[in-house]
């Protein structure tokens, strides 16, 4: 087997499909680099899977003689996740672009990175939508002229590496298409990394964004404008290798080695395993023209791999609970059988038995959480029926909506009440408070003997049931902004619960608790 692997060469990964990218496209060089890397990994050819979304870069799987999946827009990381989880032995690669990966599939990319499956994600960044003929993409520069931004892009571009770092990616790297040797090296390291390796490759779109990275990737100026990051080595760049990066506080600064007493020892030493978020953030922020644009491995971390953790969890749960029946799970805990033209409906819960232990455990946990040790919070579960009958319920008055305002005033003064219900035996129409009376009677010249109270009452916000808890009532009172809420009584009548009654209840509960010595305060 091993012998056979050694025999694999680049040619083994070249498919018979005709490559249909535009002549001069950076995708060719990346394809080449990938075809160079694969035989070096010592993995049998049939174990490779390439998953892509939509876009020029997403044509990748056709041109590689491996298993592949040209999938749906932006969803390559998702499908790759499924592939890897179902078959962890495979070497899974995602090929995406700046539009597919950061816009249409931005969410999927973020979560794939955070999950940290052992796979590779290559994002080809040409700062444009090429396949759809030149619309601006999430990485297009501010001010860039494209077909959909004829007067310049207004948005800030996304920095793919920053997205990766924010998503807790465990391997973050960048390379440029014009340096295939470097691309190969970075991809090789990424493939060896245990966890999701995210590699951004800077490349141009010959048709719609020819000079996307010309300033940094052109052979003539590359040495001076790119900073090749090497593990454990100082940050040195320049054609003559005479420039370097020093740190002033957290800010990087370009210096000339040998000038002003600067030696190589003063330079920042690159450490991909650095856990200092400031350092790697500083690197991702550096860019031409103020700084050289860094390429290479920015950051790497050893963290648990998702599919292994999942496998262990499955093993653990299977050992304690046995294997589960997927069909039973899909059919749920209960189902209905409809027959006889919809006339007969039978409800079954036959499968329930298998799940009862789980749902019971869940229920108990939630109940424990809700179970309160504090007598006051526990008392809030009391139904309002109780509070209603205990506190002042005889004082509730109800008047017909046709009653005059004078009648209402007479009721208010005679009974010293705060509020009157408006309705009849069957229906509740509204609530009339002192405030409604005062503001209408004092400020307007209405005929209080003729005008019915229905003209000035407030409509019902909510009628609660006697079985609702006191907690529910407090909630409704808080939301509605009212001082009283009507309740529907068991005998069909209506009652009223006021803020004052609630406070009395709380007061009495606290007093009771103090008497019993259940709670120690002060």
């Amino acid at each position: 087997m091993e012998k056979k692997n050694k025999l694999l060469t680049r040619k083994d990964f070249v498919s018979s499909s005709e490559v249909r990218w535009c002549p001069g496209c950076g995708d060719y060089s990346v394809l080449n680099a990938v075809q160079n890397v694969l035989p070096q990994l010592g993995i049998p050819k049939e174990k490779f899977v390439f998953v892509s979304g939509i876009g020029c870069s997403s044509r990748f799987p056709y041109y590689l003689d491996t298993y592949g999946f040209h999938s749906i827009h932006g969803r390559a990381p998702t499908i790759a996740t499924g592939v890897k989880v179902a078959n962890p032995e495979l070497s899974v690669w995602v090929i995406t672009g700046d539009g597919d990966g950061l816009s249409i599939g931005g969410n999927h990319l973020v979560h794939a990175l955070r999950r940290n499956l052992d796979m590779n994600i290559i994002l080809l960044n040409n700062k444009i939508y090429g396949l759809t003929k030149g619309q601006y993409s999430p990485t297009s520069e501010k001010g860039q002229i494209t077909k959909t931004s004829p007067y310049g892009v207004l948005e800030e571009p996304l920095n793919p590496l920053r997205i990766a770092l924010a998503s807790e990616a465990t391997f973050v790297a960048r390379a440029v298409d014009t340096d295939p040797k470097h691309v190969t090296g970075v991809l090789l390291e990424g493939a060896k990394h245990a966890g999701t390796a995210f590699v951004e490759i800077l490349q141009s779109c010959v048709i719609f964004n020819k000079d996307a990275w010309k300033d940094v990737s052109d052979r003539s100026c590359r040495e001076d404008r790119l900073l090749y990051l090497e593990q454990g080595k100082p940050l040195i760049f320049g054609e003559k290798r005479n420039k370097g990066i020093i740190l002033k506080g957290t800010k990087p600064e370009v210096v000339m080695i040998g000038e002003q007493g600067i030696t190589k020892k003063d330079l920042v030493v690159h450490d991909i395993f650095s856990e200092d978020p400031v350092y790697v953030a500083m690197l991702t922020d550096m860019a031409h023209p103020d700084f050289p644009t860094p390429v290479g491995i920015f950051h790497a971390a050893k963290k648990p791999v998702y599919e292994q953790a999942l496998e262990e969890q499955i093993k653990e749960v299977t050992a304690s609970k046995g294997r589960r029946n997927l069909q039973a799970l899909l059919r749920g805990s209960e189902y209905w059988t409809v027959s006889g033209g919809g006339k007969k409906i039978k409800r079954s819960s036959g499968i329930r038995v298998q799940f009862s232990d789980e749902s019971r455990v869940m229920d108990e946990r939630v109940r424990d959480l809700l179970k309160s040790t504090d007598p006051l919070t526990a008392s809030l579960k009391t139904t309002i029926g109780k509070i209603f009958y205990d506190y002042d319920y005889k004082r509730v008055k109800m008047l017909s909506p046709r009653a005059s305002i004078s009648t209402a005033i007479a009721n208010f003064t005679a009974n010293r009440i705060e509020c009157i219900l408006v309705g009849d035996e069957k229906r509740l129409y509204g609530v009339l408070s002192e405030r409604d009376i005062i503001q209408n009677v004092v400020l307007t010249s209405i005929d209080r003997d003729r005008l019915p109270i229905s003209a000035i009452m407030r409509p019902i916000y909510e009628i609660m049931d006697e079985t609702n808890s006191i907690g529910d009532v407090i909630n409704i009172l808080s939301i509605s902004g009212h001082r009283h809420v009507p309740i529907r009584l068991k005998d069909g009548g209506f009652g009223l619960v006021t803020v004052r009654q609630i406070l009395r209840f709380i007061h009495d509960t606290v007093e009771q608790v103090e008497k019993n010595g259940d709670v120690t305060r002060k």
Partner: protein
Amino acid sequence: MTKRKKETFWAEPIGKVDLQQPAVVKTGTSIIDAVKEMKYNQIGCVLVVDAKKKLVGILSNGDLMHEFVGSTLSGDTPVDEIMTKNPASATPALTVQEALEIFHSNRFRHLPILTGETVEGILSVRGLMTFISEHLPLQVMNLPPDSSLIAPTVSGE
């Protein structure tokens, strides 16, 4: 831990409660203008202060209902005639528990909170209830706005 939390909750000073902005009028203001002030401030009472801005009385919807609406007094009558003189007040140092006690043993719904002679705001029964309920998120605050949506059991069965 839970015990300590409870202590601090009941012993919280009333200054931490969201007090209502008071409606304030000077002595001698007509009843009609006082009611306008209440309506404008969306509050059920109005504070009456003297020339030195010292609190001398409070006029509530209850006072108006019982002393004015059914009476023969004209709307131009000064508030002084029907207001409650020298009303109960408290300082921001009053605790939640003490406030609960005050509202329990008195009929009024609004309590002026003063620092020295400066009015800080009005503590209402509603404000106090809301403050208490905010400390009980599980049982009170985090519920659906429509009571018919409140699940009878935790698992929603």
